[in-house]
């Protein structure tokens, strides 16, 4: 019962055209900046928004096509929303039992079926509380139980962790990981947080401006970003260019020496911590050395992130100590060098 989706929607000025599939027991993360159309895709999958074109099918069942739109309540799915959306007038047990009740189960058996789910998400004994009496993390766990209780074929998660504070997010993310591992259906996780995607998903599609710009396993996406957005998310500087032998001529000017031979249109990815800064041109004969100008410097944990402008725009992470020793201020001229072996190069 693989989820197969091609979603085409026009939302104001944003045209969304996204295609993907999710296998049984698989978790697909849809990663993208705000306003990229991720949530629109999820609303289409849920049936809350009829698509303008395309097709949504689960196994043999077609949910959306040119001549068919199955309304949300007839789709076998569970959805977890960013701010849980537990019904405020119902107890937690009644919230979790809601899906069973609306699908025709009687009150007592539905409540009985909801109880083990409360145990599974760690809310034992809180079933009689109202949503307003739970913490954010507890409420999101209850929302997960509510979505999973009917054993849906598709589970949709819309930024499920982004409304939580940092510490709660860590705990709920770990639990969510456990539940997603046990879940037999197809799960789609929409998020703008790369850590959520990396930690929870088997595969990632990156959506920007309504289009899929990259797809792959979390490791592939992290190692070989294909857009500036993804590169920034995973902390890399991405430079497009054209390879000839062990050299890449960058589209923006400048030449980068690389360790592996590259040919044709390629991306060059540089980790900021592999960039070294000097006040004088470094001695010896490093091949990748450029005179650059410091544009901005911001503290980033134990390092200072230096944005550099010039022939090859780079970002360098230097320790606070060496930053102080260099005595740099914005506007300062520096020499930046990177070992060829530290540079990743892959075809565009």
């Amino acid at each position, binding site marked *: 019962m693989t989820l197969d989706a091609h979603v085409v929607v026009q939302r104001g000025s944003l045209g969304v055209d996204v295609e993907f599939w999710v296998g049984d027991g698989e978790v697909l993360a849809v990663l993208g900046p705000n306003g990229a159309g991720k949530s629109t895709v999820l609303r289409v999958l849920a049936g809350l928004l009829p698509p303008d074109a395309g097709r949504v099918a689960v196994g043999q069942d077609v949910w959306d096509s040119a001549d068919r739109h199955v309304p949300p309540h007839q789709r076998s799915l569970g959805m977890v929303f960013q701010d849980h959306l537990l019904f405020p007038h119902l107890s937690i047990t009644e919230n979790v039992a*809601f899906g069973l009740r609306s699908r025709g189960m009687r009150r007592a058996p539905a409540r009985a079926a909801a109880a083990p789910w409360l145990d599974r998400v760690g809310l034992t004994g809180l079933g009689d509380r109202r949503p307003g009496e739970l913490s954010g993390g507890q409420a999101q766990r209850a929302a997960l139980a509510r979505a999973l209780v009917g054993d849906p074929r598709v589970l949709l998660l819309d930024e499920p962790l982004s409304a939580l504070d940092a510490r709660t997010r860590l705990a709920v993310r770990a639990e969510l990981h456990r539940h997603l591992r046990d879940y037999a259906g197809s799960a789609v996780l929409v998020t703008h947080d790369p850590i959520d995607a990396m930690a929870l998903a088997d595969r990632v599609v990156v959506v920007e401006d309504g289009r899929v710009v990259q797809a792959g396993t979390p490791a592939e996406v992290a190692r070989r970003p294909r857009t500036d957005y993804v590169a920034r998310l995973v902390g890399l500087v991405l430079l497009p260019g054209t390879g000839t032998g062990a050299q890449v001529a960058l589209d923006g000017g400048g030449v980068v020496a690389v360790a592996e031979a590259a040919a044709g249109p390629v991306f060059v990815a540089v980790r900021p911590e592999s960039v070294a800064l000097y006040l004088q041109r470094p001695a010896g004969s490093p091949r990748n050395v450029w005179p650059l100008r410091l544009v901005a410097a911001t503290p980033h944990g134990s390092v200072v992130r230096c944005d550099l402008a010039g022939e090859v725009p780079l970002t360098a992470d230097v320790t606070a100590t060496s930053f102080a020793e260099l005595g740099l201020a914005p506007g300062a001229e520096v020499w930046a060098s990177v070992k060829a072996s530290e540079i990743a190069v892959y075809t565009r």
Partner: protein
Amino acid sequence: MPLPLLLPALLAVAFLVLPLLGLVVRAPWSTIGPQLAQPEVGQALRLSLLSATLATGVSLVLGVPLAWVLARSRIRGRSVLRALVTVPLVLPPVVGGVALFLVIGRTGILGRPLYEHLGVTVPFTTTAVVIAETFVAMPFLVISVEGALRAADARFEDAAATLGADRWTTFRRVTLPLVAPGIAAGAVLCWARALGEFGATITFAGNFPGTTQTMPLAVYLALQRDPEAAIVLSLVLLAVSLATLLLLRDRWLGRGPGQGVPA
């Protein structure tokens, strides 16, 4: 405080409060017991409470679905529809009474077939009182409930849909409980308006003690015959109004609808 604001404000307070004070001051407190015990008073009060309650019931049964259509459906011409159903809100009630008479009167568009085929006459009956009051009061309920529906978070309805609830189930189990405070406030407002209804009632239902003579009609009549009785009847209506205000106090002076819903 600047005098040009303070002075008119004080005048406004005096203007609004003094007449009511006058009513209380001039009340024949010594004979109020026997006055209230008169059978006509009890009759009019009973009829008023009954017809206002029935009118509120009809308004709830018809008006809440109408409010839902105005707030949630995507039908075309919705704003025109909203304008149409709120006309009675601004229409002089006596015009409403005339209009009702032309439609449901014995020779009216609907009234004639009703009379000829079923032998039913509506005008000058208690039913006519309820119809007149519903006509005037239902828009208050519709507007109030529609506002509550618009203020309620529609994403709860999305959540219910993803949990297998069709729109009717969603309405019953999610929407209705969420806007219950708004419906209650609308019902109180509607009931108070129906209770005070005069123009449409006297035009369409007439003024027959026991069947169509509600409290406001009784007050008006008594004022010409027995002013003291009019004062006593007015006091009763004032008391009912104050009680209504008390019921609505939390809504108007404190929390609005939906604010009690935790995020």
